[in-house]
């Protein structure tokens, strides 16, 4: 039992570290390391986008982009463990890749698995190089947890498909050149069977992107509307009616982004509790009143950290990450909300303040308080994650499916 690299891993780490040390945009370090958890996704203002593209291009040119992709499509053919090591070494600069993460982590692998060779050669290298940004258009207003309930219609017209409908929660749609799009091509069959996947040029006529203002006052996502959008049949990924299977490729690759563990916020709390004064002199951390909760959260944060170490160990032995990794988001999501709530209470009436210049600990807890409800929902609600753990890890039965084998168009849409 140890945390040491194998000699091969150590050599790879050294190589990565030295390249990063020589090439990273160090002038961005203060911004990137100060961004705090829960906000890193929101740094993509214009300058940051340019910086992100520049760093991605530099990595691409030196063979450090999309490490796990085959070399012919712009990757390095690296092992999953090498990818993890790279991520560890890239550190704060990895935040610059958030813009590309959906394209490189989900859309690219889908195109790689299901696209024509011509598409792959044309589309993948610019994606790896950060020249193109991609988005993933699956969710709809009426199809969230029940993704296969989506209603965006694709109707065949000669060699083209005509798309009408809308998507929601599309990260980066406003800055994307391409996207993958899951549509319903046959509403007369059971819901999972009538879906078809395409890739689309986001600059096509018939696409309108509108940002969604979220509860915390920021816009991380978009709605995308399709009005008679025409897509050539050659942009189909997989067979007609095979869209659900294709989408599983996309979603399974989401799971591979292991090691990018979410934070519970406990380190921030401990940092605060060690620095902030208690009510009667001494440090906040010495107040017995908060001990039990600190201890509980400490074990959760530590448990997630070492669970991810165990997953990495499995990965280094060649095992694939499984559904048990759902616990990361489940635990971190709920815990970060609890911690934020607790921390603002410790600030008394000043806990309401949100200006980093005025609020305690630079308003980090207030930012998390306002952002955290989304964490328990996005990318799989707590309830869906518990279902996944119960069904796929523990082998318990699925929920009763009243819509099973029912033609999609007969599934009730109102109570």
């Amino acid at each position, binding site marked *: 039992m140890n945390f040491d690299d194998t000699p091969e891993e150590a050599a790879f780490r050294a190589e990565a570290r030295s390249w990063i040390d020589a090439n990273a945009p160090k002038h961005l370090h203060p911004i990137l390391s100060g961004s705090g958890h829960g906000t890193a996704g929101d740094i993509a203002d214009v300058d940051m986008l340019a910086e992100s593209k520049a760093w991605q291009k530099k990595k691409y040119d030196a063979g450090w982009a999309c490490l796990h992709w085959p070399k012919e499509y712009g990757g390095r053919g690296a092992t999953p463990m090498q990818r993890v090591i790279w991520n560890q070494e890239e550190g704060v600069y990895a935040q610059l890749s958030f813009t590309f993460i959906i394209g490189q982590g989900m859309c690219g692998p889908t195109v790689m698995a299901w696209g024509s060779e011509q598409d792959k050669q044309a589309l993948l290298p610019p994606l790896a190089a950060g020249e193109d940004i991609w988005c993933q258009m699956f969710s709809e207003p009426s199809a969230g947890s*029940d993704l296969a309930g989506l209603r965006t219609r694709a109707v065949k017209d000669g060699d083209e498909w005509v798309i009408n409908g809308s998507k929601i929660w599309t990260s980066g749609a406003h800055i994307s050149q391409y996207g993958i799009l899951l549509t319903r091509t046959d509403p007369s069959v059971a819901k999972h069977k009538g879906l078809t996947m395409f890739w689309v040029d986001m600059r096509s006529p018939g696409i309108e992107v509108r940002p969604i203002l979220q509860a915390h006052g920021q816009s991380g996502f978009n709605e995308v509307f399709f009005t008679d959008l025409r897509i050539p049949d050659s942009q189909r990924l997989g067979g007609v009616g095979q869209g659900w299977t294709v989408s599983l490729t996309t979603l399974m690759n989401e799971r591979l982004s292991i090691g990018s563990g979410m934070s519970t916020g406990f380190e921030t709390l401990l940092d605060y509790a060690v620095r902030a004064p208690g009510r009667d002199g001494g440090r906040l951390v010495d107040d017995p*009143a908060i001990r039990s909760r600190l201890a509980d959260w400490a074990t959760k944060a530590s448990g997630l950290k070492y669970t991810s170490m165990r997953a990495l160990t499995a990965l280094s032995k060649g095992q694939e990450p499984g559904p048990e990794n759902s616990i990361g988001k489940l635990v971190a999501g709920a815990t970060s909300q609890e911690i934020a709530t607790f921390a603002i209470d*410790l*600030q*008394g009436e*000043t806990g309401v303040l949100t200006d980093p210049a005025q609020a305690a600990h630079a308003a980090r807890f207030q930012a998390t308080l306002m952002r955290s409800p989304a964490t328990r929902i996005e990318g799989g609600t707590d309830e869906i994650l518990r279902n996944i753990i119960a069904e796929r890890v523990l082998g318990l039965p699925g929920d009763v499916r009243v819509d099973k084998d029912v033609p999609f168009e007969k599934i009730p849409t109102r109570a």
Partner: protein
Amino acid sequence: MQFDFNEQQNEFRQEARRFLTAECSTDRVRKALEGGGFDRSLWQGVAEMGFLGIAIPEEHGGLGLGYLELCAVAEEFGRAIAPLPILSSVYLAAEAIKSFGTAEQQSEWLPKIAAGAAIGCLASSEGERLTERNVRATFNNGALSGTKAPVLDGDIADVAIVLAKEGDALSLVLVDLSQEGVTRQSLDTIDPTRGQATLTFDNAAGERLGERGEGWANLQTLLDRAAVLVAFEQIGGADRALEMGRDYALERMAFGRQIGSFQAIKHMLADMYVSATLARSNAYYGAWALSTGAAELPRAAATARVSATNAFRHCAKNNIQVHGGMGFTWQMDCHLFYRRANQLALALGSLPDWEEKLVNRLAAANEPLAA
């Protein structure tokens, strides 16, 4: 046993609900959230309904009714998450002046507060969790100096009740805010529908409110009473958040059925109902103690406060969860309740302070709780 509001009080509540449903929709709350500032016309409407003077004697322009009527109306203000300074002006400032003010102070301010012509506020914290020992503002020979922050509704108030050191004692001080020597600066908070400000006093003219050295004790009395009233705001908000979640669970379909038919959602809503119900019962206990002037008030107030704080937070948080992604959009109202739940949890001092008060009071009473 009549451990409930009576018919008359319930009618009064209905009146408030009708008024607020018509005049204080969440669209109107949003205006405050989105920078529309203080909704003075709504405030005037509320004043004209008499809601600001419910517990103010008729001789001072109020309705001269009891605290139960005020509790009932507070619940409706909570349901409506009204973007109004009722907590500061009615539950705190008016109560302070009524309880500790001289006849002159009462006749100067109470009629104005009842009429909505003046807004009061309480200025106690100085930028950290308040204790008896970290008050730095000073009051000497009628002159107040120091900085109070955050002051709820301090951005719009006309008069403040300020906790300050008078020599080595703590006193409450009544300060007209429309004078030189008072400056204010608005603060960004998690709930912009109830504004907060930093108030700075530079040798501002003030009058002592109540006895010298009684400031801390009187503040506790005020906070206990206000805690009961705020608990009603909180249970009103909790109930509405629960109802929103329930309605959405009935309406939203997934996997071919109402999401409310999934036990994960059903049981989440059942748990919300449980905490809202316990909080309501505890709030009634507080209302009984407040309205009868019972010796149990400190204990009942702390019980109501802790219970209602937890319930409103729980319901507001899980209402978002029931709504899924839609619940976290700006356009849906869920976040208005989440913001208010957290704002009210921090007003009057936060949960750890009230937990401490509750346990100390229970231990002092050393009387088993359950009959």
